[in-house]
């Protein structure tokens, strides 16, 4: 059986014992929405948006910022902060072990990455959640890194942008994680007082404690198409309330309709939209440049 055909077949009807090693890992990808089989290089060139149906796949924090920021300059903020298991929390597994596992799998120390840089020449601080790190959950390090990102924005008087992707608070840090909601919201209140814009970009998924704090507090809230965004998870709502969930419930389009977000922006339009928006909010001339970081124009000299 040819390898591409093998990928198409559901695993139950595949014959076992086939030589899987002949297939380079991840040469092909399948769109979870339209099931189209895509050549991974094409998909990557398209910012992990399905070329067939425009489904936005989840992407990691580094890649997110890579796609968003101009290549130069970039300075990482808060990388020195690393998580500790203050409570010696243990469920079916030790928190300590979960951290090590997540760190190995993601090559990150925790679930929030921040870079100071530019988008089409507009200077800003940009943070992104790493969903693969324990579901992008917010614990002490995520909270503190977010605060340091906001403080950098305050210090340099440049806007803050945060791409959220999180299941919510990190249970393994118990009440300390709940308190990160208050902490991150407080620093945003300070940003607000200082007249520094904060744009929150909600990506798939943004739920629970992250949604109910920093992610909903943007001067402008932007959602990627089709992202799941809400406070309570759809399963929790179904189970506890026994209500039938309406079509498209808690998706970006639903949030736009109900007034929770300002706009839905395609990932491929993110740079142009945000740089234009931020330049206006900070009273700067319109930025030149497009949606590919590599193609970005150098900042206009003045």
């Amino acid at each position, binding site marked *: 059986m040819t390898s591409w055909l093998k990928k198409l077949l559901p695993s139950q009807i595949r014959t076992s014992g086939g030589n899987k090693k002949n297939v380079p890992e991840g040469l092909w990808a399948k769109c979870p929405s339209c099931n189209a089989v895509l050549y991974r290089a094409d998909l990557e060139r398209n910012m992990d948006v399905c070329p067939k149906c425009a489904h936005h796949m989840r992407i990691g924090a580094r890649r997110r910022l890579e796609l968003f920021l101009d290549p130069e300059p970039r300075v990482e903020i808060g990388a020195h902060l690393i998580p500790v298991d203050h409570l010696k929390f243990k469920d079916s597994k030790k928190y300590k072990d979960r951290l090590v596992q997540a760190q190995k799998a993601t090559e990150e120390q925790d679930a929030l990455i921040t870079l100071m840089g530019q988008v089409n020449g507009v200077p800003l601080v940009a943070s992104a959640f790493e969903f693969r790190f324990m579901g992008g959950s917010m614990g002490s390090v995520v909270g503190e890194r977010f605060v340091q990102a906001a403080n950098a924005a305050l210090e340099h008087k440049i806007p803050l942008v945060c791409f959220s992707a999180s299941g919510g608070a990190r249970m393994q840090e118990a009440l300390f994680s709940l308190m990160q909601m208050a902490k991150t919201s407080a620093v945003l209140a300070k940003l607000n007082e200082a007249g520094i814009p904060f744009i929150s970009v909600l990506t798939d998924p943004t739920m629970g404690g992250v949604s109910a704090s920093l*992610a909903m507090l943007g001067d402008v809230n932007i959602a990627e198409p089709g992202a799941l965004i809400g*406070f309570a998870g759809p399963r929790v709502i179904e189970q506890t309330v026994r209500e039938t969930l309406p079509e498209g419930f808690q998706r970006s389009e639903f949030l736009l309709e109900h007034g929770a977000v300002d706009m839905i922006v395609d990932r491929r339009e993110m740079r142009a939209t945000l740089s234009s928006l931020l330049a206006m909010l900070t009273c700067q001339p319109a930025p030149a440049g497009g949606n590919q970081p590599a193609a970005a124009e150098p900042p206009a000299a003045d």
Partner: protein
Amino acid sequence: MNLNFLEFEQPIAELEAKIEELRYVGDDNEINIGEEIARLESKSRELTESIFADLSPWQISQIARHPMRPYTSDYIERIFTDFQELHGDRAYADDLSIIGGVARLEGRPVMVIGHEKGRDTKEKVARNFGMPRPEGYRKAKRLMEMAERFGLPIVTFIDTPGAYPGVGAEERGQSEAIARNLFVMARLKTPIICTVIGEGGSGGALAIGVGDRVQMLQYSTYSVISPEGCASILWKSAEKAPDAAEALGITSARLKELGLIDGVIGEPLGGAHRNYTTVAAAIRTTLLDALAELEKVPTEALVERRYERLMALGHWDSTEA
């Protein structure tokens, strides 16, 4: 009195039933059984003392949710005078799971806001079991901003299983409503005193819980997620709730030890529901003390201190020297 004994209190319940029985018999009996009753009563007290001396976090969470536990309205009645309830978020509805209004605390006008669970079935339904929808949080925010405007300190009482997970609540922006309250409370230019009186259920509790002094009743709980919820996610079984309660450290004693709350208010033997008056008086004392201290601090310094406290929350390591 039917005290609605919890499962771990059954030995006490049995003794109390025996005492009741003896009292009933005693009415038409010549034999002096007063002595026997006194003996049993002291035994019951001793038993209660020994059981309550060593409660597990899971048992404490049962007391925090006790159906007879005093609610916000019970405390308002006993602690304040001239309470004028204010209703509505001015946008959509009046959410009865949060009550609020102006009142006097020993003559001093304050704004009081708290979750309210409802006592009987009809009231529980009307108050949605103390689980607010966005309009509840927005009502609270309206009252808190009003308090700032008129220089009234804010007193909140926290007692909720959590924010309501419903379709309407999501449609009307549950996340934003909670987030906005955190945002506003962080910078309000008036003293805020928060007391957890029963269940401090996650974001639904925190949304009226950012303050200059945060305290808990002895047998109340405060947690990022309910023990049941945590157990079903991390242990894949709701039956592990007692383990989850232990791991989450949801009790007043543990949270005080961790530096997450400022004070613990003792409860009468057997829990707050055994004596509303005593607990109310104890809370009242702490409110007066806290207020006296907070009102001495200039407003700007007060807000800055609250902010610094929030910024200090959490534990991490640094790879920088």
